[in-house]
């Protein structure tokens, strides 16, 4: 008698990779083909382009250096929005579709499909970031003098920190419902304190305290220095150290928060109620 091949994989690593890949492809397919390649890209382009346009009109005559900063800030804003709207909000969308329970029923680790969704949403994020940089360069004449290695390192650390926060937002959305409201609220909070339109130093002193414990301002500042002014690792050292701490701590904290709040929701028994 021939032995039948198991239809379900027993390897948890394989399940995790498979789940991440499947959720990445599902989101990418949805974003590119179902919504149409021009669909949400429009949203993701309209907002930064028009915001940069407004800032450009304001900063142009006053302080052109701020314009370069704003280009980097808004480009980073696209990745922050990815963490907020794709990692943070995605579970609520699944709940609305009625598919959230199915996700939780799979043996795949939460991290795998959450990461897959985040990668799937990168399509719009990258287009948005590219358009912002293009607008800054072509229309507002911003010039880049990058230290490539520093830009790459800062960017990777920044993204890791953002995803850690994304998992936390996601968990909050599980318990509070209406993640879109949460993402919008957090987004306006991040725009105030995150140093996106202006450096954190422009904030009143008492607002710099909460701004300094968030990874946004330090990440954007490091990326602005590395990409606009060819800043060396030495110059960037204070920001890099802080970014490394954020990149190491936030993902772990994010997953712990997710696990804790997931248990809370299951105890409350309203996982599927929107």
């Amino acid at each position: 008698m021939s032995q039948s091949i198991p239809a379900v994989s027993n390897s948890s690593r394989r399940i995790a990779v498979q789940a991440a890949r499947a959720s990445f492809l599902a989101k990418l397919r949805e974003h590119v083909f179902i919504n149409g390649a021009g669909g949400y890209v429009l949203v993701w382009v309209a907002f930064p382009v028009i915001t940069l346009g407004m800032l450009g009109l304001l900063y142009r005559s006053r302080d052109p250096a701020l314009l370069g900063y704003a280009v980097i800030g808004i480009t980073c804003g696209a990745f922050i929005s990815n963490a907020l709207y794709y990692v943070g909000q995605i579970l609520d969308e699944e709940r609305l579709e009625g598919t959230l329970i199915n996700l939780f029923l799979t043996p795949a680790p939460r991290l795998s499909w959450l990461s897959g969704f985040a990668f799937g949403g990168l399509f719009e994020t990258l287009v948005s970031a590219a358009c912002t940089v293009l607008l800054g360069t072509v229309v507002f004449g911003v010039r880049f003098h990058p230290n490539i290695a520093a830009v790459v390192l800062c960017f990777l650390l920044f993204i890791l920190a953002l995803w850690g926060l994304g998992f936390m937002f996601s968990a909050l959305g599980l318990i509070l419902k209406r993640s879109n409201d949460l993402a919008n609220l957090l987004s306006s909070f991040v725009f105030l304190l995150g140093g996106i339109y202006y450096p954190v130093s422009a904030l009143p002193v008492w607002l710099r305290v909460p701004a300094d414990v968030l990874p946004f301002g330090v990440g954007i500042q490091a990326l602005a220095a590395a990409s606009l002014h060819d800043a060396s690792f030495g110059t960037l050292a204070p920001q890099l150290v802080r970014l490394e701490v954020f990149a190491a701590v936030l993902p772990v904290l994010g997953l712990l928060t997710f696990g804790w709040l997931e248990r809370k929701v299951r105890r409350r028994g309203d996982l599927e109620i929107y």
Partner: protein
Amino acid sequence: MIVTYRNPGAGFVATLLATSRAYLQRSSAYLIALIRWPLGPLFTFATWRVTYHAAGNGSVEGATVSGFLLVGVFGLITWTSSIWASGYAVEYERGEGTSASLFLTPASRAAVVAGYGLGSFVWFLPSFAALAFLAIVTGARFDIGDPPAAIAATVSLFVASLAAGFAFSGLFILSRKANLIANVLQSPAYLLSGLLIPLSSLPAWLRPLSGAVPATQAVVALRRSVLLGASTRSIGADVLHSLAVSVVWFVVGLIGLRVVEYVAKHTGRLELF
């Protein structure tokens, strides 16, 4: 028992009020919604206040930055509530699975859409108060020389927002991408209606487009009447301009709502989400 019915006019008002009440009840069921709406506009105000500070602007078009932004964010709130409440009304119903129940009733669709707008406006009231407080604390100076002028400008701003809501609600019924359209429209509207930056800074080629947005002149009139002491006579042209554009948008919206419902029923897309 015998069921008694209201006359059509009273029915319209009852539908409007009932919808706005139901909207408020449903929205207040979410803790995050209770927190978000009052806080969101405050963050936006503060962000732009710091942005102007960073740019070194002490005043805008003769008004204090805080005063200028207070009126702008006030306009932004009414615009947001018109797009995300009135315009989005049918989409909310779809999401909730109640659009068929709604379309099965003989109620006026216009009353339902307006009810969402009214509910959303009430929902934002605490936000208005907090915003005014924050603006005063950060240096806003008011000069209301002619209160009827301020009232006329405020009314024209609400009418403009409601007209935009009507115009978009039809568009949203037909499209499964209402969220996308609403998001895409939002940013250009902020730019064109001069909510956050002065109209005078817009490139000349954008200004005609700006005039076609109903809220633009209403915001100008409101700023002049509450920040610069303008009289009813001097803002009259702006208010009339805004009302005229609003009427066009309103009529287009009402016709659109009817046409689109018919087309949606023809193509079987009414309940699709």
